[in-house]
């Protein structure tokens, strides 16, 4: 099988269309099973009571938010070395979903923090790193939208995400370092004494989030493929149509 065949937007477009319903269906199934396990089957936590159930959605969103950035970096390397157009489109499609999940991880973390720690925001190492990750997503999205030339925006975005991903472990390490220096709060998910059913519930919720993310990213990348293919053509055609009503000198003026 030639994998490069699927690196072309033209062949990938119908493939993605066929895959989306499957991922969406899996997302629903995993979501229902995960919610059932997390909200009903899993027992109450001895220390935190019922409110700990937020981790069944908090941890999966944080996980997706972080991994999507690394996936973007992998596509970034592919975009700059193999020069596949699809890689850049995938990066553009992944970024909003990654940013959304990172923001949701912060929101659910805050909603967990209030009843558990008495405050919505806690400068915990993990929360702080997640906030910085959100800044990295916003930087990428701002950059690719600020550059008008699509080709340049693709390459610049790829380079930025690669530089950013090299920095991600350093940022994480530095924030933990800062956290211990300041003896700040350290929030730990229930940890080793987590019951099996809790772990299963969290894993299945994570799978649900992944399936949803893949489905929505594939749907977005299909829209991007169409936009890229026809945007340029539309502008040229626009000029041609306008040109029929224009005199020759006016056409020169527009060029």
């Amino acid at each position, binding site marked *: 099988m030639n994998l490069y065949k699927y690196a072309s937007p033209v062949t990938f477009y119908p493939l993605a269309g066929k895959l989306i319903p499957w991922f969406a269906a899996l997302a629903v199934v995993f979501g229902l099973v995960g919610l059932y396990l997390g909200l009903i089957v899993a027992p109450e936590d001895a220390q935190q009571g019922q409110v700990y159930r937020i981790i069944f959605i908090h941890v999966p969103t944080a996980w997706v938010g972080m991994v999507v950035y690394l996936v973007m970096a992998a596509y970034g390397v592919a975009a*700059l070395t193999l020069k596949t157009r699809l890689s850049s489109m995938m990066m553009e499609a992944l970024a909003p979903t990654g940013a959304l999940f990172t923001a949701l991880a912060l929101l659910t973390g805050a909603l967990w923090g209030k009843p558990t720690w008495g405050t919505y925001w806690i400068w915990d190492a993990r929360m702080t790193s997640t906030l*910085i990750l959100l*800044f*990295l997503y*916003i*930087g990428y999205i*701002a*950059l690719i939208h*600020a*550059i008008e030339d699509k*080709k*340049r925006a693709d*390459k*610049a975005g790829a*380079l*930025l995400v*690669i*530089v*950013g991903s*090299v*920095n991600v472990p*350093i*940022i994480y*390490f*530095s*924030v933990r*370092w*800062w956290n211990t*220096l300041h003896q700040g709060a350290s929030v730990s998910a229930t940890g080793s004494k987590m019951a099996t059913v809790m772990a299963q519930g969290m894993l299945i919720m994570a799978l649900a989030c992944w399936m949803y993310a893949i489905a929505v990213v594939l749907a977005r990348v299909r829209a991007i493929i169409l936009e890229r293919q026809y945007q340029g053509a539309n502008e040229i055609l626009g000029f041609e149509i306008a040109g029929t009503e224009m005199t020759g000198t006016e056409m020169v003026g527009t060029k």
Partner: protein
Amino acid sequence: MNAPRSLSRLEFEPLPDSSSGMVELSRSPERGFFVAAARDIFLAFRSKGEVIQALVFFIVVVSLFPLAIGAETALLRRIAPGVVWVAALLSVLLTLPRLFASDHLDGTLEQMLLSPFPLTLIVAGKMAAHWLTTGLPLALMAPLLGLQFGLGGDELGVLVMSLLLGTPILSMLGAVGAALTLGVRGGSVLVALLILPLYIPVLIFGAGAVEAVATGIDYAANLSLLGAGLLFGALATPFAVAAAVKISLD
């Protein structure tokens, strides 16, 4: 304004083929680094305003804090490392457009791409010049500001050392952002958005070193981490910046 700039631009024009020893000598690649650095330092000092403006900005920002939160000595000593470091970070950020923008506008940057010197070394030279004209003056000015905040001798020493090790990293990472946003509308805010998150580790280790010495903890680890970052940055960022310049000029 234009004449000397275009004169120094000649340095980057492709050299004519010749077997004479002189030309061979001037083709040696590391010369690209020194030519680029010397040229940028020369330009920065000729328009004296730029170097001084960043320095004054640094001083003014730091001076705002006592006015905003009160001049209680214990409080000022407590926040001094963070305030000085954040102000240094913002000053460097303000000067980043200077790195490539004017060379981009007058076409010198394109000449650099075509010059016989490797672009990686040219941008490394520009980054070095940027540090010498922004980071270094900031580091040398910092003890004065530290005194205003009631820092003692040891803390002042570590503050200067942390700035000497950390500000080059700010110039290096900043160069990536400056190169990526060349000629983009609203570039300066965009650079801040791209680069500030990447500056966070430098800020943490830099301000952390001074705080460590103030609280009597070992500060050497912070400085070594900054040193490691400096080495890694010096090895990696010139390639990233060269790639970014090529992307922007394509």
